[in-house]
């Protein structure tokens, strides 16, 4: 064990492929510390999403071990996994994965609904506004429907949601895949600023626009 916030040791993972199985990850190890921005890169199908899902406690590791903030994910119950994710991890997916036809506020406050003790309505509204400010969307109306936003705005709303619990670790899976150049650069700036402020940022991408600001790059495949 190290002082790393996120520690993965010798992870291997295989998926069925017709009659056989296909090895996607083979002995992958990683240490991620506070304030670090690390990029996992590689072409499509090399297992980036699979790796991030394992590290975020969304997919049980078939082989190898994962620790998040000193807690092992290997033998955690689904309930414990949910708690660990809630406490330490923010997740930003490729296309943002917003709840469609719902308001900006409803989307951003989602992770707060799973915290106990409950976060009150006014406190949630306050945090939503603060999170919107952090991602540079301070002038967006929280009650606006997310379907009416641009791709870049949507991805930043998703980032605001991933940050709403001020997680120690932010995991982002191809966060710029659906963005144009300006929006991608803006998102990269936000992620870099987050890392500089002490968040451990782990992202998967094959987009140089977001890999460039990383402190460290890990090739896959």
């Amino acid at each position, binding site marked *: 064990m190290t002082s790393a916030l996120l520690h993965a040791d010798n992870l291997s*993972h295989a998926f069925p492929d017709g009659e056989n199985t296909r090895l996607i990850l083979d002995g992958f190890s990683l240490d991620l510390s506070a304030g670090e921005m690390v990029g996992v890169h590689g072409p499509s199908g090399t297992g980036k999403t699979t790796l991030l899902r394992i590290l975020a406690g969304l997919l049980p590791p078939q082989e190898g071990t994962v620790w998040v903030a000193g807690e092992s994910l290997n033998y955690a119950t689904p*309930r414990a996994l*949910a708690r660990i994710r809630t406490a330490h991890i923010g997740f930003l997916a490729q296309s943002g994965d917003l709840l469609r036809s719902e308001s900006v506020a409803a989307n951003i406050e*989602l992770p707060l609904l*799973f915290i106990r003790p409950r976060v009150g309505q006014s406190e949630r509204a306050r945090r939503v506004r603060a999170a919107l400010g952090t991602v540079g969307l301070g002038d967006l109306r929280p009650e606006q429907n997310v379907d009416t936003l641009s791709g870049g705005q949507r991805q930043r709303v998703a980032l605001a949601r991933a940050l709403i619990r001020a997680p120690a670790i932010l995991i982002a899976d191809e966060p710029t895949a659906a963005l144009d150049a300006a929006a991608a650069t803006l998102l990269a700036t936000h992620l870099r600023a987050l890392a500089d402020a002490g968040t451990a940022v782990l992202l998967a991408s094959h987009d140089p626009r977001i890999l460039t600001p990383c402190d460290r790059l890990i090739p896959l495949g």
Partner: protein
Amino acid sequence: MSSRTRVGRDFRSATGWFVLCAVILAGQAALVASFATFTVGYADAAASPSETELPAGQGSAVRVIDPQARNVQDLEEPALLPGAPVLFGALGERADLFLTGEDGRIDPGATTAEEFTAGMRAEDLARLIRCLCAPDALEDVIVSINAAEDAAETGRRYEAVPVKELISPLERSGTLIDRLNLTLGITVSLLGGVVVAAGAHRLRAHTLRRFLIEHLHGARPGMLHLRAQLVLALGITPPLLLGFTAGRIVYAGADWPPLLPAHYLLFPALFALALHLLIGIPFARRISRTLHPKGPS
């Protein structure tokens, strides 16, 4: 619990679909009811499974024993039957209200069957002589009618029989209108089924996506499963209840109220339960697979 408000939200987002389900179910119930009115209503009572399964004594009828062999039940066409008894107090009211024993009234002023009947047709008679009661509950009525018939020396006699023994050749199933009715009913049911299935499919995709997103942001799988089943229960029961109620209303307005078995409410309840299990179990499996995609271990 925020899961309570979340259930509300899930349900609201699915409301349009639920309303559609209710409308389709109600429409189908109405069609089936009108279909049943044509077939079951005039068909051989003994051949109707819901009636043969009646507990003993549940349904009864007055059988006309006509010395002129003009047994009303053997008439092919509706015809005027002077002299047949009319067992009701006021026109337009339903027979089963009058022949239940407690309320088996006969016009007190009339002394013979002729006076009871004045222009009744076999069709009306067939409609009127049934009641949802035991045969002996009709005993008083029968005695009064037979006394009246005796006094008028018509030779006609009446007896109360369980509905199982009643044979009604006013059988109309197999006629063009019934075939049309049946075809229409089946077509609408199939179309309705397709629409409901398509709606359910979209709803499932929508819900799975939503659950996956919530899971990514900290929702516990157990709570998501619970929510799914709750919304499903809410989604099945009200439309079913609405459809069933609509069916009952149509039946109540129909010429011939088919006899319903005792505890008939048990059937929609069992149907709802079966439907829930049929949808709920694969749905729960699907949620598990969405939240925890697994390779071989």
